[in-house]
């Protein structure tokens, strides 16, 4: 399973929206192979009878009352934006379809 290929890394980089260079892809393919073969050890003990734990301390039903709180001003909301038109964030053309 740790036979990770450069094509896979390129696909992962696309999923993660990182424009890795060919050199990085090559380097990372090698590193990931090593890391994955080390971390695959989890399967030595992760048998079907063991339930997964996603939260270290189990809580449930943590809710918020439906009460309006403080909001940011539009200026505060846009303050950190690389580009804005005064009321909205500006992004360059979108190629993909809406989800």
């Amino acid at each position, binding site marked *: 399973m740790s036979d990770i290929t450069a094509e896979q890394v390129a*696909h992962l980089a696309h*999923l993660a*929206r990182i424009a890795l260079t060919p050199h990085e892809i090559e380097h990372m393919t090698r590193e990931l192979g090593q890391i994955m073969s080390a971390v695959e050890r989890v399967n030595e003990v992760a048998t079907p009878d063991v339930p997964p734990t*996603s*939260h270290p301390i*189990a*809580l*449930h*039903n*943590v*809710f*918020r*009352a*439906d*009460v*309006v*709180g*403080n*909001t*940011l*001003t*539009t200026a505060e*909301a*846009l303050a*950190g934006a690389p580009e804005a*038109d005064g*009321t*909205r*964030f*500006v*992004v*360059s*053309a*979108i190629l*993909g*379809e*809406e*989800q």
Partner: protein
Amino acid sequence: MARAELMNFDAALDQFEPVIGLEVHVELNTRTKMFSSSPNPANSQFHSAEPNTLITPVCLGLPGSLPVVNETAVRYSISLGLALGCSIAASSRFARKNYFYPDLAKNYQISQSDEPIAFDGGVEVELDGGRTIVVPIERAHMEEDAGKLTHVGGATGRIQGAEYSLVDYNRAGVPLVEIVTRPIFGAEKDAPALARAYVATIRDIVLALGISEARMERGNLRCDANVSLRPRGAQQLGTRTETKNVNSLRSIERAVRYEIQRQAAILAGGGAITQETRHWHEDTGTTSAGRPKSDADDYRYFPEPDLVPVVPGAELIAELRAALPEPPAARRARLKVEWGFTDLEFQDVANGGLLAEVAATVAAGASPAAARKWWTGELTRIANATGRDVTELATPAQVAELAALVNEGTLTDRLARQALEGVIAGEGSPREIVDARGLAVVSDDGSLYAAIDEALAAQPDVLAKIRDGKVEAAGVIIGAVMRATKGTADAARVRELVLERAAAS
């Protein structure tokens, strides 16, 4: 775009069996968003907010911000699940759906994956002619809405050809419940009508529950329609398309019908259906190809580590179950009897998606007949003529007021239609418009007597004829009085008074 080949609908049904599946997104009308205390634009109170004003660090996905679940949204979701006949999960979890898109502030959507709040239900949907079909519900899960993109620089305001886009995150984080049906078999030629009636039923349910404004033109209720065809006798399901965001009841029916005809033409011509999303175009009544569904769609769901499980107790479920409004089918049966409608009259209301409006109008004091007449008559006519959704034209309270004004004799039907124009134009309540426009029927007999006496005095020959028993001559006087009162008088009353006056003089 090139117009697709379509097969005649009946011919398509002869060769193929349509199988549909529907995904309805309901925006809940809680005061605040799903995971943040920002005001919720799906609540009418905050609907018209300026861009990026309903914003907290959570809505923008600012580094360090964390979601906290809105308890009311959970209660609404459970109520909806129960109303859909679903089981409520003993333990339900949120999951992250990871994909990049500029309207998605965190580049993941908090949704639910394998542990939805509600699952395995069914909704009885009634079609024209009284046929009912139980639509099987696979699941209803909680999630958050995305922001809104405005595409600038393209010819059509669409995404293609735009130079850049603007992002407003007001809608980001609006609480949604996504209701997913199982594949629906056996609707046959009724498939398009069933799709429409199903969404109308969901709309009735959420309105009865009071958990959504359910205004389709605002996107409070959105439908994605999956359609596939299989040759008669085939076991295996055909390849399906998913037509996204069909946002009126009428369009849902048209879009399903269109897809059946389009797919049938392709299949009959030996072609294959591409599994893809398709976009519905209201203007042309067609769908066009969108994004192909592929293995590249890898959403990498995993349990949302910032949130903890929702474990609805039996007590809560019992409480919400007890508070449920009656099921739509039972409600329809009851209302039909209560309102005294004929089958045809009732179908008119139900198929127009107007049950909730008529019920609310009756509740506001109108007679069922008047409520039905206004909603399925004048309002529907205006809606069709203007391309607007009938429910956005007037509120039930306004219609009830209009009916009351007619009933008490203040307005004639003709004047009431004028008042309705004012209501639609946003001039105020019917009573306010009657006052402002001076529309009221002159019901003050005193002022009518003056006008009548004046007219009789001006035309003694006519008075003589009336006295001689030539009652039809009264028409001349009535006309004069109506002119004098600019049409605000009730002609029937004027006639009575003219005869009375003539006899007395």
